[in-house]
């Protein structure tokens, strides 16, 4: 593990990493890492200053999430969360549990691989969005919904077009915690109900698979997603 950390530092051209995460944990991975002494490794790396804060990113079940949260003195964690995936992986339960342990929570996949931000949502969904007093794009709704949670610290966006970056920055400018009204939250809830069972989930799975395996179909990754 030391070897990897040193190689990472070298690649990044730095002598320390401020927020270091153990990547893509789930129950079984954590168990094997724990037996291999990941806790001692993190303690040592923090002690000699190579890392400052330790955290983990998570793609497992909610029960395992709580177990991992309790298993080490984490400063933060990174979980997948969006208005469609409130019960998926760590979910709302995990978010609140981590916050109760004074952990910072970084959110990944706020748009579910981009699918919640498609400029032309299904007609039924577009009709619901059109009812809002404050008109927003689907992207803005999805991101604002995540930022509305005070437990959330950072929301990651896989933005790779200049226009998207600018749009996300503009949305972030107004995204105070608890800034959505009850009516707006209800609207998002209706959209969620409407979207569940459509192919957004399937599409997302394929994209994530593609990204994680670098384009190769990988049975292990596939199993991990399912």
């Amino acid at each position, binding site marked *: 593990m030391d070897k990897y950390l040193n190689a990472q530092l070298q690649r990044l051209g730095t002598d320390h990493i*401020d927020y270091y995460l153990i990547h893509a944990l789930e129950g079984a991975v954590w168990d094997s890492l724990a037996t291999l002494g990941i806790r001692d490794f993190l303690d040592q790396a923090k002690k000699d200053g190579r890392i400052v804060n330790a955290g983990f990113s998570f793609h497992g079940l909610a029960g395992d999430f709580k177990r991992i949260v309790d298993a080490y003195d984490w400063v933060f964690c990174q979980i997948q969360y969006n208005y469609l995936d409130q019960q998926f992986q760590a979910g709302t339960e995990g978010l609140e549990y981590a916050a109760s342990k004074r952990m910072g929570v970084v959110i990944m996949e706020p748009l579910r691989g981009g699918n919640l931000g498609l400029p032309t949502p299904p007609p039924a969904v577009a009709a619901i969005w059109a009812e809002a007093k404050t008109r927003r794009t689907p992207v803005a709704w999805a991101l604002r919904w995540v930022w509305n949670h005070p437990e*959330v610290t950072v929301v990651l966006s896989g933005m790779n077009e200049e226009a998207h970056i600018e749009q996300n920055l503009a949305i972030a400018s107004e995204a105070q915690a608890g800034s959505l009204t009850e009516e707006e939250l209800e609207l998002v809830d209706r959209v969620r109900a409407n979207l569940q069972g459509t192919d957004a989930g399937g599409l997302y799975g394929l994209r994530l698979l593609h990204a994680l395996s670098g384009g190769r179909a990988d049975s292990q990754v596939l199993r991990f997603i399912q």
Partner: protein
Amino acid sequence: MPRSWNCNGLKSSRVSKGLCPLAAGGISHGAIVQRSRKWNASKPLGIPKGSRPLAAGGVSWAPMARPARLRSPASDGIRQLFCRNGRSAPFPLRVWWQRRYGRQREAGRKQHAATTRRIVMLYRRMPQNGDKLSILGFGCMRLPMAGGTIDEARAIAQIRGAIDHGVNYVDTAWPYHGGKASRCSARPFRRATGSGSGSPPSCPRGASTAVRTWTSI
């Protein structure tokens, strides 16, 4: 009537700070005056930014750039006739001017706000260490591609741009883009600091180069 208005009804403090987009275009020739209670007795407050003297020994200051749409020989003539020595116009004329140019100013301000949307990064604190992290982080799992590989120049410019807008959490990992994402996500910081370590100078106090990484066992 507040104390510090010039004869166009522009608030002097806003004008002198350059906050009024149309401040330079009023028919008052940009003279900033402070009105005492006795409305006729006004005194110049100072020279607004971007002004130049109108004439040697002149009493008012003309702004450098006056929008042409607010100028006319007639308005200049009226102004010269009624507003001497930096004083405001007599009562009925002043009210008319205020109404007319006040409306224009408001329209200009709205247009200005619409075209220059302000981007302000918000920060939230990490509960345990109090670090202020930008609520928007930059993820490096889906960097821009060109010809089957990362478009490095574009990716670096994007990350750099995001950092300049206040982003201070950049997420990368060993497996992203087949191991090439880390290099890309490190370069913007290197350019910022010159040495490649520590936080970029544009980040607020407590900002961090957040780097997510992967341990493979």
